[in-house]
């Protein structure tokens, strides 16, 4: 993190305006109530002897008392985000932790360090942190605070302090063990419903993601052909006299529509595609959360089963069971609340995203309409002039 052989700055280092942030996150918290504003920008590539990686600038502005300062600026790399996510999952196993952009894109559409890839990732990371900031529980997480405020060396040392590798392994073993026993048996109806919902939702959102990509691809191919279409009319006008103006007019209209198509395409890329992708990632997260709840339940169930076979040490067991029952109740409540919150956000996101898509298409058609109408007006004026001159003897 500290040895930098070379630092390159990318041109896409525009900070995000607060107003665009507000548009993105219409959660239950009104913008005026927010006291934590985070931006992720200014990707820089770092080349060392061992590796090349990118850091992003994370700027935090806050009025909260728990923060020593009102403004922080740190640089974080993708690894640090991964660390944060795993800490949050650890601390809150049945809360819905927002998705991180993937490690790398398999589709081969975009290279690992291309500008497009970095920009897409930057936007997703920005979203990730803001979603956490808007979460009623996660926003007060200590590791989150450290992530936002600690200098590079502080973060490194803090990371090393966490539960050791062995204890994490122990957790995994226990998790696997309890998953074998299920926890599905006594699962409350509500969570089975959630599971069924997620299975269908996951299917549909994946198909939607594919459709959106198809639409983008088709629009781009259309744009590519349109680019050639207008200029032919201009070429033609060069060998004509009387109709040269009409031909040039058509050429100009087509070119304007072409630009409008480009704008529409860009809108898809900026708006619909990232959201759908985020929700594709969310489905995995939600399935994981439901599974972890089942595991916690499973722990309780197995202890209850074990108690039934015990004759001695019943008291000790009862105490343990009591603790586990609390754990299960907490987990269930946390999940239920977070689920409701997630569903509301999802509805809100989908509504605004698809409304944006509709708006984008409306702008496109309105712009094209205006272009062609103005051309038509110019032509019919000419016709009237011609007709008038023909009438004269």
């Amino acid at each position, binding site marked *: 993190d500290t040895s930098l052989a070379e630092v390159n700055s990318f041109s896409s280092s525009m900070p995000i305006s607060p107003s665009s942030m507000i548009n993105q996150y219409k959660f239950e918290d009104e913008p005026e109530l927010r006291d934590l504003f985070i931006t992720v920008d200014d990707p820089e590539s770092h080349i060392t002897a061992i590796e090349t990686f990118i850091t992003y600038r994370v700027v935090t502005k806050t009025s909260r008392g728990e923060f020593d300062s009102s403004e922080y600026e740190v640089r974080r790399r993708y690894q640090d985000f991964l660390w944060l996510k795993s800490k949050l999952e650890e601390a809150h196993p049945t809360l819905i932790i927002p998705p991180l952009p993937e490690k790398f894109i398999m589709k081969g559409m975009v290279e690992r360090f291309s500008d497009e890839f970095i920009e897409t990732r930057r936007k997703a990371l920005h979203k990730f942190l803001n979603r956490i900031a808007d979460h009623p529980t996660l926003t007060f997480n200590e590791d989150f605070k450290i992530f936002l405020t600690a200098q590079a060396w502080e973060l490194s040392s803090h990371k090393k302090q966490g539960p050791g590798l062995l204890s994490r392994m122990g957790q995994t073993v226990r998790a696997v063990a309890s998953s074998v026993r299920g926890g599905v048996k006594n699962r409350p109806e509500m969570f089975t419903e959630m599971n069924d919902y997620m299975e269908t939702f996951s299917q549909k959102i994946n198909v939607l993601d594919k459709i959106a990509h198809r639409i983008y691809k088709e629009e781009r191919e259309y744009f*590519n052909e349109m680019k050639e279409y207008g200029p032919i009319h201009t070429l033609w006008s060069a060998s004509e006299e009387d109709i040269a103006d009409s031909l040039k007019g058509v050429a100009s209209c087509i070119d304007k529509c072409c630009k409008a198509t480009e704008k529409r395409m860009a809108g898809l890329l900026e708006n619909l595609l990232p959201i759908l992708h985020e929700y594709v990632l969310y489905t995995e997260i939600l399935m994981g959360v439901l599974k972890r709840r089942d595991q916690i339940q499973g722990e309780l169930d197995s202890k209850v089963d074990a108690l039934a076979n015990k004759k001695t040490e019943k008291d000790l067991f009862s105490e343990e069971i009591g603790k586990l029952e609390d754990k299960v109740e907490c987990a269930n409540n946390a999940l239920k609340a977070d689920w409701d919150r997630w569903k509301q956000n999802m509805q809100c996101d989908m*509504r605004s995203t698809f409304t944006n898509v*509709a708006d984008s298409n409306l702008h496109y058609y309105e712009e094209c309409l205006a272009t062609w109408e103005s051309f038509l007006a110019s032509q019919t004026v000419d016709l009237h002039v011609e007709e008038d001159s023909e009438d004269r003897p």
Partner: protein
Amino acid sequence: MEDCLARKMEITVSEAEKRTGRNAVNMQETYTAYLIETRAVESQSEGQCAPVDSLWRRYSEFELLRNYLSVTYPHIVVPPLPEKRADFVWHKLSADNMDPDFVERRRIGLENFLLRVASHPVLCQDKIFYSFLTQEGGWKEMVNETGFQLKADSRLKALNATFRVKNPDKRFTELKHYSDELQSVISHLLRVRARVADRLYGVYKVHGNYGRVFSEWSAIEKEMGDGLQSAGHHMDVYAASIDDILEEEEHYADQLKEYLFYAEALRAVCRKHELMQYDLEMAAQDLTSKKQQCEELATGTVRTFSLKGMTSKLFGQETPEQREAKIKVLEEQIQEGEEQLKSKNLESRDFVKSAWTDIERFKEQKNHDLKEALISYAVMQISMCKKGIQVWTNAKECFSKM
């Protein structure tokens, strides 16, 4: 325009029918026959509607008619026929001649051809054309009896053959150049238009996929369900709307195609003039050399090298009688040649004059038609945009209720 047939007679190609029959080598073939209906236009005061005459013709007969007109009126830019085979197709359109959409568009094209001929000041007066419209049987024989095939110069068939003309008419050279450019640019435009249509089709149809997914998704949503479902319906409407839009655009493409083929007709007139000029120059050249030969024989001087001159030097001179005979023959030929040259010159001047009149007429027609076509294209685009606005306004309303 006052006397042209189109004013006196209503002409339509109203139907197309699939037929099977036996061809020249007695093999079974399938072809399409077109019904030509004609009716005399009565003046208003008569009040009665004249009876409709009709007869069936197939494409090959139209071709025969056009060939006849091209040969008989070489100075006229003869209206073109619609294409024989479907060209510039994009994926949805079939390239099959039997496809009903293609047949329908060809029917319209053939009607347009007849109307063009009927409204041409010179062509509409042709008797063979009139019989084509009114006389079912024996028309083919009538055309062949005109012997027009004999008049057709086979040299014109060699499309790329160039005739080295020493003094080309600048106007015709420019016109030929223009017709080449027109052909090139329109065919390029049609090719790209077909690709654009293909892509546009793709964009619209992919949106149709939304419909089913939204519907299935709405089944698991409580509050979002209605909005999703109805939005999906609008996406289906959007996807379906492209079919009519592109069908209309196909008619626009046909209008351009007509002028693509008209360019060929224009070029044909230039070529015929070129050939005429070439023949004229050849005849003049021939006459000059004969005159020279005559002079040499008469005066005994050899000005230019000739094999005859050499052989006569080697093998002895001719007798004075032989020489006299030769001179007499040459003088006759020269006389003939001069008359021929005179009439050829006249022919050429007449050709140029009447060709140029028709070319001016054609130019005006072309400018008018193309301008209208471009305007109709704009109207189509406007209609498409308005439909798009309507659908997406509806969809937006549904989305906002999600």
